[in-house]
């Protein structure tokens, strides 16, 4: 729960996170999903997500409420993912390119959707292609891509989360989509 108090003299909103357990419950799935999609390692994703909320808890008094809690948490998560990827750059990229296990997990959800085996095969192929393509994106392109197409964030919010301009987000997003489209076999 986010309690918003109004300071009477200057009427500036002063926001604080009063119920952090509720914040964890509400935002954990999204943060974990983003981290998992970024680093593709369940154990590391759980650890980083845990670290994300721990850091947020420790810094909760510094949260001024200028941005939403979601934006704030995502900023922390992006920094953690970036640090993780940089500290384990070689292993990280090896893992990103080793898609067999991850794709098997990803495609589990397709089976129960009532589609034909042929359609499932095509879908599986497309999912794997997108996964491989995102593995070849730059760090920023992949972050923008995941925030836009997995987390459904708009361009302005992505810009706020990443600390860049909306124009820069558009450039990264365009390049990411263009690369992915080429990798999944653009028709022309």
């Amino acid at each position, binding site marked *: 729960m986010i309690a918003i108090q109004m300071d009477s003299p200057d009427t500036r909103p002063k926001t604080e996170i009063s119920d952090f*357990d509720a914040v*964890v419950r509400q935002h*954990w799935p999204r943060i974990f999903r983003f981290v*998992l999609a970024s680093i593709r390692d369940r154990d590391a994703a759980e650890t980083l997500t*845990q670290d994300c909320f721990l850091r947020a808890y420790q810094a909760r008094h510094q949260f001024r409420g200028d941005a939403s809690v979601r934006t704030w948490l995502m900023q922390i998560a992006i920094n953690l993912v970036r640090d993780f990827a940089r500290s384990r750059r070689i292993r990280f990229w090896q893992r990103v390119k080793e898609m067999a296990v991850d794709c098997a997990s990803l495609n589990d959800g397709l089976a129960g959707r009532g589609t034909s085996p042929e359609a499932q095969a095509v879908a599986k192929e497309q999912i794997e292609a997108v996964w491989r393509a995102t593995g070849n994106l730059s760090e920023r392109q992949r972050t923008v891509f995941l925030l836009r197409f997995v987390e459904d964030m708009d361009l302005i919010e992505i810009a706020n989360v990443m600390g860049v301009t909306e124009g820069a987000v*558009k450039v990264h997003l365009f390049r990411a989509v263009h690369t992915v489209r080429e990798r999944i076999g*653009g028709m022309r």
Partner: protein
Amino acid sequence: MKHLSPEQISSVVAGIRMPGDDHIRDCAECALEVERVQNALTLFRGSIRDWSDKLDHSEFHEAVASRKARSPHRAPMAWVLATAALAAAVAIPIYQDSKNQEVKAQALRDAELLNDVNAQLSRRGPLAMDPLMQLMTAPISSPAAEASKAHGSETTTIQDRGGIR
């Protein structure tokens, strides 16, 4: 009819408006290509969400809760440190004061000892000879001396006559 370029298709998929992308409303071929890519991205999103949702995070929620619960103990820890600092601030001057007093007392004792030593060193003779020394330095009060004194001669001592120095 001029179709959208690959860059324009990517731009439409990304949700970024570009000049000429209105063409997609009138062209089934371009619309199909955009839909094909969007469909792949939708499947991608669904697969990640399925994967993420089916993982059990209960143990990690508990871990966060327990770590979070431990962190408030830092406040008492801060109090402990502050109290220790305060105690040190009080105790150190007291300790230093008592130590100064001890040093002064020791200096006094040292001074007394030194005086004793000086007194010993300044003796003209051994301690056992003090009575004799006093006797020799004392004025002669024999009847002859008294008679001599009466005749105006000065009092003489053994020392004056080349006695013990």
